[in-house]
């Protein structure tokens, strides 16, 4: 089997080939919003909120920088950066596996990461997830080493990378806070007091966020460290209508009367009645607060719906489809990736890989995943995302951890009890596939039939 380095090279090359085959894809939904924010930042000199939410600034900033340096080719430049940065993700996945499982598993992890088409496909798209995990995984490796050796240099680097990741995606902040708790607990378990080394990590985490928080204090009167998205996510996710962003843009291309029914399986579907409208408000924070209030009121009045729809959201997240496949269905790729000779094998392989990653990943997590806070804390944070909304893109930061777990499964012999747990987890995952079967098969069918 090739070495970890060789797999990283293969992985980056595969992503580069995919980006070339994709061509300059049309912008879809949030991709266009990020580009709008970057373009307006370049033109007017400020980043605005999006009225409904405030995204962390790093990805719009990279768009702005791309436009400044490469004019209307700025988006292509950013995609190229994502391809190059994916090498860091590969290094991080293998490195974390080597540290938390064993060296032999690291090679498996690097191989699985390199060839995982859904993950690779995101490098061709305009969401911040690829760059987010390129910062997160190396950060966790440095955090591991820094905490073990009480090495402030590594903890400083880990904190800075985690802080930067929170400027790409808000969940990075939550992982950072969990990691800080882990560092403190780890230090206390070693009977060492909370000293300068531990504080170095926490403050390094805060450092990249400080200028942005100070800017937000000036703008909104609150030191918002990352983003303001909770209210909008609650509006989308804690409401009486099930919104699955894997099929929504595709459905909108069809006239209302021709749209198929893609609700989750009956026990988990919502009635669509008794929902709440997006409230107004003069400022972003007022609107966000009003949405949080609306969501809480809806949840209190519809506890059963809330619980049932969480299963549907989880099913949306692990459904074996992906945004690159959705892009094929939307006919957004102008390049050879849209050619059926290439798109159909891509769809088949990406679907198979996504299904296997979810099935084996769940089995591995239930049986032999590393018993380490630096595996479980981010995994739990990413698994908790369907508490708000559900879509396959939320799986992007989770996938590296599924890969680490699968690599552990491939290099561990399970005892009877572990096997039983693995089978139960696999069966639950199959059940979740069933919950979202109507939507998944329709999206895949649309992609398969796309010209």
């Amino acid at each position: 089997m090739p070495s970890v380095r060789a797999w990283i090279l293969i992985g980056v090359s595969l992503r580069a080939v995919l980006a070339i085959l994709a061509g300059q894809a049309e912008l879809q939904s949030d991709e266009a919003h990020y580009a709008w924010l970057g373009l307006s930042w370049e033109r007017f000199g400020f980043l605005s909120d999006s009225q409904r939410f405030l995204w962390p600034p790093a990805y719009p900033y990279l768009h702005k920088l791309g436009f400044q340096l490469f004019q209307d080719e700025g988006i292509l430049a950013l995609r190229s950066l994502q391809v190059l940065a994916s090498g860091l993700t590969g290094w991080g996945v293998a490195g974390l596996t080597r540290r938390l499982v064993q060296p032999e598993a690291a090679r498996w992890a690097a191989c699985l990461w390199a060839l995982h088409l859904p993950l690779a496909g995101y490098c061709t798209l305009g969401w911040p997830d690829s760059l987010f995990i390129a910062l997160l995984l190396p950060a966790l490796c440095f955090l591991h080493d820094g905490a073990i050796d009480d090495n402030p240099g590594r903890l400083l680097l880990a904190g800075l990378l985690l802080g930067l990741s929170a400027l790409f995606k808000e969940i990075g902040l939550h992982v950072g806070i969990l990691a800080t708790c882990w560092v403190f607990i780890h230090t206390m378990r070693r009977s060492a007091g909370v000293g300068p080394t531990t504080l170095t990590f926490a403050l390094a985490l805060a450092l990249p966020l400080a200028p942005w928080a100070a800017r937000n204090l000036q703008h909104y009167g609150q030191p918002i460290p990352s983003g303001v998205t909770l209210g909008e996510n609650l509006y989308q996710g804690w409401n009486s209508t099930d919104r699955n962003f894997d099929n929504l843009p595709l459905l909108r291309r069809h006239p209302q009367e021709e749209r198929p029914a893609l609700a989750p399986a009956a026990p988990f579907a919502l009635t669509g009645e008794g929902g709440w409208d997006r409230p107004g408000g003069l400022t972003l924070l007022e609107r966000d607060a009003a949405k949080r209030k609306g969501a809480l009121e809806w949840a209190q009045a519809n506890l059963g719906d809330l619980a049932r729809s969480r299963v549907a959201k989880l099913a949306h997240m692990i459904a074996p489809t992906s945004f690159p496949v959705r892009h094929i269905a939307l006919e957004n790729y102008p390049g050879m990736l849209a050619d059926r000779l290439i798109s159909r094998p891509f769809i088949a392989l990406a679907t198979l890989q996504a299904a296997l990653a979810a099935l084996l990943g769940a089995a591995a997590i239930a049986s032999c995943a590393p018993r380490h806070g630096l595996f479980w804390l981010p995994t739990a944070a990413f698994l908790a995302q369907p508490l708000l909304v559900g879509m396959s893109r939320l799986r992007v930061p989770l996938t590296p951890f599924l890969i680490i777990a699968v690599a552990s499964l491939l290099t561990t012999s399970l005892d009877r009890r572990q096997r039983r747990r693995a089978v139960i987890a696999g069966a639950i995952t199959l059940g979740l596939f069933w919950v979202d079967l109507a939507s998944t098969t329709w999206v895949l069918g649309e992609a398969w039939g796309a010209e």
Partner: protein
Amino acid sequence: MNPKRVSWATPIALALLCAAPFLSKSRASEEVLLQRLRSGECEALPLLAAGYPHALTPALMEELARHEEHRLRELVAHQAWIPHVKLRDQLTRIATLEPRELRERAKVWAERRTTSRETLTRADIAAYWTSREPR
């Protein structure tokens, strides 16, 4: 690095660096922000929208639409004006912007705003860029 040599200097330095951005940020008054906006500083617009939303009026928009600096005229189409100014009023104002290239660029901001279902396309970006005046 030798763990025994770890001192408090690093966390103290980091804490000071974290605090520094907060020291220089104070909220400007409405008058100051309006003055900054009129003198060509577009960055004052989101500060007004967040801190003094009532200051964003159709009258101010009309004033900026005739500003000698084209960037300020184009700013009339920014989504930061909404909901303080009605979208209909904004679109009416955009329709009066001169010259024509500027009006077309302004339409991109307004019609492809991030809350719109009609989102920004690659063709929009290319057209927008070719109509930009040299900096």
